[in-house]
């Protein structure tokens, strides 16, 4: 069978870490030839996600995705990673999907293809001109994954390759529950012993102190680990995990973190006067929950107005370590921007605001995750205490949210490195980025 033109499609690197950029390039096309670059991924839940961009080859028959402009599709403009972050479920998929890799020992496999012309549908029905496969890994080679089951503590520890010891990070995920490992795996790929913790599954704490001593125990498991530098352990939390992070930073007596990162979190206790109530599966006062026109749940107002009663929120003035706060101003799930303003006010009044750095990203939503994972404005969510299934509105517009993920991840890694990796030039931690 004679073939008139076969373009040569390349992706570099063919196997990358999830937060590494790749270069997608096409050669051997006719000049000024319109093509569609398409990405396809089959998730662990067996849903298909895709993205595509419209390009026109140059006079030499080349397309270089990192430099050329996409004229349309799921992303536009010069976007080297658009084929990943603009992915969305293919037409006909189930609704409310969220893309998350639960098994981090295997990579995300993405098929990149090139089609003739500018196509917006029917990608499965026609053969592409060429395809390439790329792998995206959460675990760098040599990273070890170890299950932790110590009494009531259930989690996973990831250890970087090398002799160690290493700084440690306790990774606190959000209120959706379960054991979410991917951010920890990626942190270990960047040189931190990292522990992912399943803290929502089963423990019931009657008091604030019981709650605290559980988290102190967790922190000590990391600190006492033979491959961890015991006074270089930080905490990174998302959403409810961020509230736990702030609680630990303020109240833990016998043990404390060297620095903290709070992503899309609030210092306001969601139920009243302590974190313990979260774990008592109390029913939340749904009075302030709203629904949008598509019946998606908006929890943004639940903690508004920000209480003035200091008992209803974490005593920010007690925090003694550097704190990085990351928010999106289109967060529809939690009033994180208002919380951040109040946190800064409290810390100014207490005189420890030199420890605080706040990054607020315009038009980013609640789920600010490691970069290049697709953004979704809403997704299916099971409310822990009632087991009710809803569609939760997280917020954010795809392009600004994806930019926020890329930028914030870089800054989070730099912040963790600065405070947790002992530096030869000074022995005291820096307060600001």
């Amino acid at each position, binding site marked *: *069978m*004679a*073939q*008139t033109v*076969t373009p*040569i*499609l390349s992706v*570099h*690197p*063919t*196997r*990358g*870490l999830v937060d*590494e950029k790749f270069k997608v390039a096409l050669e*051997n096309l006719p000049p000024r030839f319109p093509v569609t670059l398409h990405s396809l991924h089959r998730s662990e839940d067996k849903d298909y996600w895709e993205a595509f961009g419209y390009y026109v080859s140059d006079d030499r028959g080349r397309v270089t995705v990192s430099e050329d402009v996409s004229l349309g599709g799921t992303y536009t403009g010069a976007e080297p990673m658009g084929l990943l972050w603009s992915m969305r479920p293919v037409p006909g998929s189930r609704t409310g999907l969220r893309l998350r890799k639960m098994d981090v020992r295997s990579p995300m*496999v993405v*098929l990149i*293809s090139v089609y003739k012309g500018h196509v917006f549908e029917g990608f499965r029905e026609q*053969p*592409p*001109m*060429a*395809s*390439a*496969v*790329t*792998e995206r*890994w959460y675990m*760098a*080679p*040599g990273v070890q994954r170890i299950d932790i089951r110590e009494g009531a503590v259930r989690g996973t520890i990831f250890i*970087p*390759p*090398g*002799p160690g010891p*290493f*700084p440690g990070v306790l990774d606190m995920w959000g209120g959706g529950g379960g054991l979410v490992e991917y951010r920890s795996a990626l942190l270990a*790929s960047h*040189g931190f012993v990292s522990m992912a913790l399943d803290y929502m599954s089963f423990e019931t704490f009657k008091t604030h102190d019981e709650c605290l001593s559980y988290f102190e125990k967790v922190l*000590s498991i990391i*600190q006492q680990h033979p491959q961890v*530098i*015991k*006074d270089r352990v930080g905490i990174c939390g998302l959403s409810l995990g961020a509230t736990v992070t702030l609680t630990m930073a303020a109240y833990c007596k*016998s*043990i*404390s973190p060297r620095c903290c990162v709070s992503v899309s979190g609030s210092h306001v206790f969601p139920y009243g006067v302590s974190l313990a109530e979260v774990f008592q599966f109390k029913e939340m006062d749904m009075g302030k929950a709203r629904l949008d026109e598509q019946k998606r749940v908006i929890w943004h107002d639940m903690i508004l107005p920000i209480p003035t009663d200091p008992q209803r929120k974490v005593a920010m003035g007690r925090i003694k370590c550097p704190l990085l706060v990351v928010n999106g101003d289109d967060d529809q799930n939690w009033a994180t921007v208002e919380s951040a303003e109040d946190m800064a006010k409290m810390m100014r009044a207490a005189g420890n605001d030199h420890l605080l750095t706040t990054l607020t990203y315009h038009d980013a939503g609640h789920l600010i995750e490691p970069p290049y994972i697709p953004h979704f404005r809403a997704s299916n969510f099971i409310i822990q205490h009632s087991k009710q299934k809803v569609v939760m509105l997280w917020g954010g517009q795809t392009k600004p949210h994806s930019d926020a993920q890329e930028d914030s991840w870089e800054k989070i890694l730099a912040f963790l*490195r600065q405070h947790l*990796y*002992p*530096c*030869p*030039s000074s*022995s*005291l931690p820096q307060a600001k980025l």
Partner: protein
Amino acid sequence: MKTWVSNRQSTMETNLWRLLLSVQPSRGLVDEKFSVRVQNAPPAHPLTMHALLHSEDGDTWEAFGHYVTDSGGDVNVSEDPSLGGTYDGVEPMGLLWSLRPAPGSRPGLRFRKRDAQTPMQVRLSVYQGHQSEGFMDRAVLASVMVERWYMAPGVRRVNITEGGVTGTLFLPPGPGPFPGLMDLWGGGGGLVEYRPALLASHGFASLALDYLKQADVKNEYFEDAYRVLQQHPQVCKNRIGLVGLSFGSSVALKMSVYSNVIQPRCIVCVSGSHIHAAGSRLKKTRYNEENQVIWRDLLLPVPTDLSKKVDVGRLQCPLLLVVGEDDQNWPVPESADDMREMMEGAGNSHLLTVLSYPRAGHLIEPPYSPHCRAGTFMAAGSRKKFIALWGGEVAPHSRAQEDAWRKTLDFLRENLYCSAD
């Protein structure tokens, strides 16, 4: 009740620093460059970068370079010079191509990956100061694992046993059909898969052929193999090339000129000769002071009799010759000169491109693999082992591999992908 460590600064902290070692990509193709960086060390600090590789046979290979951190406490192997070690100067990939057997290894080792489906696993480490030996007994400051793959994701490996042909076909990912390559390895025989696996990672359906199982292989075997490749549904039957190394190059030349079935669109001959290896002029075997065998004189002088060499004046497709000028195994430079003369005489020299590399030896392979100046060799079907002198010096040979591979891929793309039907 347990007492916890108090939150005071450790007194050791003023002396404590931990450096960050990173390699990108951490999983790369064998011919991809990587970037190795050290950060967070003290400024103007001596460090040794070290690479360690265990072969499938259990041998240990290592390489190292001596560096000094800059004023920021960083080392960037792609930009900073190595001041000594198994390589020196600014060499981004020196930690791979200068790998050599660790002290105490068996003699005559050659690094070859038998299983092309799994990666080479290289441990890259940083040591304090400028070390040159005893690495296994010293503490490392940091260490990472790097994978080097012959197969890109999506490349498929297919066993071929039809029509009496034994081989392995590697298919690129995608709908196809693809240009095809028949990969003919050298006189050591066996089924050597890593080069065709890598060629498939670059878009060519590549067939590794096991052709030295019988001492007396017939021409029809190659023609059958060529047909198998042509008829494969994912191969463009009119876009097939031949890639040979050493004895495989001779086969490639012979078949292309004399066979009616084998009509490649282009040929790459690495370290090959057009001279028929007929008759054993074994008394021309020489030995150097280390008792390593030099076989290059066996085919010399270049015969003038046309029956004793392939009549390359009859070639009808582009030919790329890759020549190592320090080849001690075959008279490759002399053969290349003679081929050029013959083709100029016949009027088809516009088809010929010669890449000639000073101080490169016989085994010109894909880049960034360890160089072997002399190694154990056992001809297919024989039980006698020699230490054959291949030739070449480490740095020039490695540069030759990098340059030749890039130009070989360009040549194959131009002739098999880009040219009009």
